[in-house]
């Protein structure tokens, strides 16, 4: 049995369905105001909502619908033409309806006065509307007063076929008192037996009984005056039943409750009928025989209380014919109606979900049975065919069940015409929204998750993508911008494209904005391709708008769009061409319940990786190691067709301990230790001043171990996440399978690298890898990871700590960089000016003899074959005597955050290497170079040798470049140096081990320098420990604060001499 609540839920469902059609219909009317069919549909939708709402006591909802209906009713009768003002008012009314249907419980508290007043005044023609509204002037409430026929509009001619009829009642005083006592409303109603009762499949008795449930008949009569005798056409005859009805129903809903049109009903005011005499005038059909005479005649103006008569009497009866041509005809009509109602039934989504789950379980059991059955089938031949049958039925069953949850994309697309219309108006742009493929179906859950991201994308496109009409004209485009929303199938997935013909995305502007916002460093920006720059719009906290506008600045960024899409197993691809437009392509799975996956094995466990994220599989043979493996930015990388992809083993990435080291790992380790050994060897060679025995460049790794060749092949999955790709090493690949996703239990949901689990055919459980989670968890991105997980504060800091670099070449293929603060000047010289004295080159420079150093003489770098006549020199700062370093030419200067990859390229005079503009650039250690080439040029700080040997220094520093430089400087003098990358680790190290001196950075993640010094000074044990702040923050206030907090000294970074002098001072 249905409870009231069930019925209310049913009504709300229905109301939502109606609401979803109202908006597109209104927009259709805006472009085609005369579309009668649409007006009728609109009217019916609003009308149904009004009726239902009244029944359930949702008065405000009912009122709102009522005034909307009134306006539409006028439009329907041809009384007015809907212009933009009307549509606007109706749309704002629609918003209120939506709001109230969404929150039925509080709907009566919602204020609709503005919308209502506006609609009412429009309906009354008080407000100037965009279109003229030829409303007939009010006439007295008397029967048909003949007026000259108006200039005929079709609606008006129809109008002429109708007339009014006055009925009189003499109500018993007793009844009137009863009505007053029970606080009831009194209505006079007029219905026709055929048109209003028969056509709804009711007998008069049923009609009466239905009404008696809503109130009581006070008086009534059947008008038989015009009835014909038996010989007349009684089948065609339609008698008028007029009655006075008492009910608690409010006037706004009475017509709906009584199943009559508004104009068939008149609300009687008790005060006016105290004597029981009632005289009402209600519309009447012109008697058939009188019809010809009525044609040229009177337009009846309705009494003021009664809304305009409607030209289409069947509106209430869902377009059933006014009166059936014959008895048979009518039952036929009824049959059709019956069939229609049986075509679909409402089923709760929860029920469907349960079915989907069960079908999933069935599939899993089927898979297991198939595997088990295959062995058995050899014994029993019939078993296999039974299994095959089961297999087929199960597959089909699952497909069908999944189909029940499929909905057309149009349900989401449908709301965009209005959005675009409003965006266009508020932004002053002319936007033409074109939707294609609305019939493409997607799983309900996918569709629901799609709604918000799509809305945001469309907002963005309208706001940023499409230009103002003037701008478009100047660019040679038509003033109207086009926004295309297109859905289609492609290789088993659904693609939704949002594209425009707007200005496109300017990668450089995006990057500049990102740098300004601190989500990106200048350095990162410079190494990015245009596509990567455009894709920055997907970064958290990024918004392109110069000013946060109402339109797109709603606190949701494209990052949320992307993560929402990825959460439902889809992906977003951005393509944009400056000046030509932008296209966002969403690739979506048809359903989230079944995922096509590659099953892989790692450390004896099986994992499922969604195919959608898989780019390719790479088999790495031992002979490929050397070519394809390496270190960049301290990470293992895979070189694949010119790209460098981060490489991680699946097990390691998931935190599973590997039983035995992977082959390629051994290779990489050897590579590393070999490099280290080579370095040691080289530096020893240098110190002894011997000729270098090994002339090959330090990054040449051809010295391959024979062991490496014995290692087995490695399987690498290339996984794409956003525009990034990573390589994931697995032990073996089992095969691909359509798996049924079982969601993660709540207590495991914090494991972001799994998206769910599944049961495989052999009964084992396999976890499904969430590729996005996996990549983020392992920070697997060469260019983007620096931004991820980094707060704005930290991001700002990295800009502050960015290095100004002078980038140059030396006439070879190598590129070099030196930090600019160490350089005094760069100058151009002529080769002919160089003088060679006892194997050393000198130049007369500003009146002094300047020693010239050639990089290739001291460093493991290539020697230029030939120098041009004019060449450049770099003159370092703070040397005792003038020294110049000969280079070929300066390429660029850049300020960037540097990640020195020590592992890959490292050597005497080389701090490390980094990628600049995609090229490996060697970072020169200027002091080391001077020490090698012209040691006398350096100011030397004289350390007490025994002190040096006994002293241990801790450097707390998060920036890899500074870690390297400071450690190099200190160890070059002979100190034992430890480095920790943040304050917390630093303090832990201090507690663990004795240090004579601590050099501490200020801006650091986890725990900054201030916290370090406060922690240390709070501990008696470390109250006297010498701690020097070593920072690039040069701010008087901060320095004061730092010294007050307990730093022994505040030192600005990167002056080697000063640093060594200070260290020396504190150690003595």
């Amino acid at each position: 049995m249905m409870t009231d609540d069930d019925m209310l839920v049913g009504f709300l469902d229905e109301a939502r369905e109606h609401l979803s059609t109202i908006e597109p219909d209104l927009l259709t009317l805006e472009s085609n105001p005369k579309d009668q069919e649409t007006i009728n549909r609109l009217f019916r939708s609003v009308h149904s909502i009004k009726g239902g709402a009244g029944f359930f006591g949702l008065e405000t909802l009912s009122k709102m619908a009522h005034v909307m209906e009134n306006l539409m009713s006028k439009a329907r009768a041809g009384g007015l033409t809907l212009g933009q003002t009307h549509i606007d008012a109706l749309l704002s009314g629609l918003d209120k309806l939506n709001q109230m249907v969404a929150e039925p419980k509080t709907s009566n508290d919602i204020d609709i006065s503005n919308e209502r007043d506006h609609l009412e005044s429009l309906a009354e023609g008080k407000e100037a509307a965009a279109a003229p509204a030829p409303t007939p002037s009010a006439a007295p409430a008397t029967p048909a007063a003949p007026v000259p026929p108006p200039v005929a509009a079709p609606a008006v001619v129809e109008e002429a076929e109708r007339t009014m009829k006055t009925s009189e009642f003499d109500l018993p005083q007793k009844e009137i008192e009863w009505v007053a006592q029970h606080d009831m409303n009194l209505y006079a109603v007029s219905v026709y037996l055929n048109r209003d009762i028969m056509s709804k499949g009711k007998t008069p008795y049923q009609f009466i009984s239905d009404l008696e449930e809503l109130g009581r008949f006070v008086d009534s009569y059947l008008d038989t005056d015009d009835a014909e005798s038996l010989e007349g056409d009684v089948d065609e005859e339609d008698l008028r039943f007029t009655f006075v009805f008492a009910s608690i129903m409010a006037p706004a809903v009475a017509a709906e409750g009584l199943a009559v049109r508004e104009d068939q009903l008149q609300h009687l005011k008790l005060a006016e009928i105290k004597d029981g005499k009632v005289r009402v005038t209600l519309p009447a059909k012109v008697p058939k025989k009188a019809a010809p005479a009525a044609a040229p005649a009177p337009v009846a103006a309705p009494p003021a209380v009664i809304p305009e008569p409607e030209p289409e009497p069947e509106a209430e009866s869902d377009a059933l014919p006014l009166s059936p041509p014959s008895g048979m005809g009518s039952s036929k009509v009824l049959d059709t109606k019956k069939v229609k109602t049986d075509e679909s039934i409402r089923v709760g989504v929860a029920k469907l979900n349960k079915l989907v789950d069960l079908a999933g379980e069935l599939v899993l059991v089927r898979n297991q049975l198939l595997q088990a059955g295959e062995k058995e089938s050899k014994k029993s031949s019939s078993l296999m065919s039974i299994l095959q049958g089961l297999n087929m039925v199960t597959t089909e069953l699952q497909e069908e069940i999944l189909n029940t949850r499929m909905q057309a994309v149009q349900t989401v697309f449908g709301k965009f015409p209005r959005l675009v219309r409003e965006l266009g108006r508020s932004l002053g742009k002319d936007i033409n929204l074109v939707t294609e493929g609305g019939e493409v179906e997607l799983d309900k859950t996918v569709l629901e998750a799609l709604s918000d991201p799509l809305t945001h994308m469309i907002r963005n496109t309208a706001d940023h993508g499409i230009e103002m009409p003037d701008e478009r004209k100047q660019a040679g485009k038509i003033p109207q911008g086009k926004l295309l929303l297109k859905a289609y199938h492609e290789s088993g997935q659904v693609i939704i494209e949002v594209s425009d013909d707007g200005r496109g995305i300017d990668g450089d502007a995006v990057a500049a904005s990102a740098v300004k916002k601190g989500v990106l460093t200048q350095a990162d920006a410079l190494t990015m391709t245009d596509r990567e720059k455009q894709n920055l719009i997907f970064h958290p906290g990024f918004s392109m708008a110069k000013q946060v506008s109402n339109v797109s600045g709603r606190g949701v960024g494209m990052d949320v769009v992307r993560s929402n899409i990825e959460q439902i197993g889809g992906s977003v691809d951005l393509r944009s061409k400056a000046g030509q437009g932008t296209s966002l392509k969403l690739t979506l799975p048809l359903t989230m319940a079944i995922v096509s996956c590659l099953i892989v094995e790692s450390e004896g466990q099986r994992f499922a990786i969604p195919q959608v994220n898989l780019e390719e599989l790479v088999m790495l043979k031992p002979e490929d190691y050397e070519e394809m493996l390496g270190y960049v930015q301290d990470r293992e990388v895979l070189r694949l067709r010119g790209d460098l992809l981060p490489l991680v083993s699946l097990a390691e990435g998931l935190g599973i301990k590997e039983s035995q080291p992977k082959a390629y790992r051994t290779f990489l380790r050897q590579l590393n230790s070999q490099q280290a050994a080579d370095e040691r060897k080289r530096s020893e060679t240098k110190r002894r001043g011997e000729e270098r025995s090994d002339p090959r460049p330090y990054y040449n790794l051809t010295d391959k171990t024979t062991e490496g060749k014995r290692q087995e092949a490695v399987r690498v999955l290339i996984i794409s996440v956003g525009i990034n790709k990573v390589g994931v090493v697995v032990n073996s690949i089992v095969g691909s399978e359509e798996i049924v996703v079982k969601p993660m239990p709540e207590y495991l949901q914090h494991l972001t690298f799994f998206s769910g689990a599944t049961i495989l055919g052999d009964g084992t459980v396999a976890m499904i890898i969430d590729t996005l989670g996996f990549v983020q968890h392992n920070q697997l991105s060469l260019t983007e990871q620096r931004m991820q997980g980094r707060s704005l504060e930290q991001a700002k800091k990295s800009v502050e700590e960015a290095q100004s670099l002078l980038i140059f070449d030396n006439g070879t293929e190598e590129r070099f960089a030196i930090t600019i603060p160490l350089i005094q000047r760069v100058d151009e010289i002529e080769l002919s000016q160089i003088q060679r004295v006892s194997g050393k080159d000198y130049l007369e420079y500003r009146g002094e003899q300047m020693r010239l150093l050639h990089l290739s003489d001291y460093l493991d770098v290539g020697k230029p074959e030939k120098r041009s006549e004019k060449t450049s020199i770099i003159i370092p700062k703070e040397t005792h005597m003038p020294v110049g370093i000969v280079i070929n030419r300066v390429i660029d200067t850049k300020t960037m955050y540097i990640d020195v990859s020590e592992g890959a390229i490292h050597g005497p005079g080389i701090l490390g290497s980094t990628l600049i503009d995609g090229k490996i650039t060697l970072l020169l250690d200027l002091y080391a170079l001077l020490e090698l080439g012209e040691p006398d040029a350096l100011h030397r700080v004289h350390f007490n040798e025994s002190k040096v040997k006994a002293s241990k220094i801790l450097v707390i520093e998060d920036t890899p470049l500074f870690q390297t430089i400071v450690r190099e400087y200190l160890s070059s003098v002979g100190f034992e140096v430890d480095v920790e990358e943040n304050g917390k680790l630093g303090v832990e190290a201090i507690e663990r081990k004795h240090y004579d001196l601590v050099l501490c950075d200020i801006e650091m993640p986890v725990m900054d320098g201030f916290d370090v010094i406060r922690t240390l000074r709070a501990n008696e044990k470390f109250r006297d420990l010498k701690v020097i702040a070593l920072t690039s923050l040069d701010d008087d206030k901060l320095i004061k604060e730092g010294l007050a907090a307990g730093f022994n000294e505040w030192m600005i970074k990167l002056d080697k001499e000063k640093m060594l002098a200070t260290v020396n001072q504190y150690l003595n």
Partner: protein
Amino acid sequence: MIEFQVEGDRLVCLPVEEIIASNVPTMRETLIEHLDEAKDWNELIFDCHKVETLDSIGINLIVGLFKRARVAGKEFRVVGCNPAMVKVLQLFRLDEQFPVEAQ
């Protein structure tokens, strides 16, 4: 189908099927035919005791029959009505125009 009985100057019409749209045309033809043939009656009795349902077209038939009798200056009465029919005829105030008797 309608059965006819003559009881003195009364002509009794006994519909043996529902008085609804699908049956009314036939009923009407039968009635016209029979009333024309049998001219000696003074009172027309429409006996509904075999009728369960009366629809709008059925009402038309009864009203038409009443008018026909009145035009001829004859009496008309509806008898054997089930409570539903009585209620409808009363609400339509037809009982003020001709006698309506319950079963």
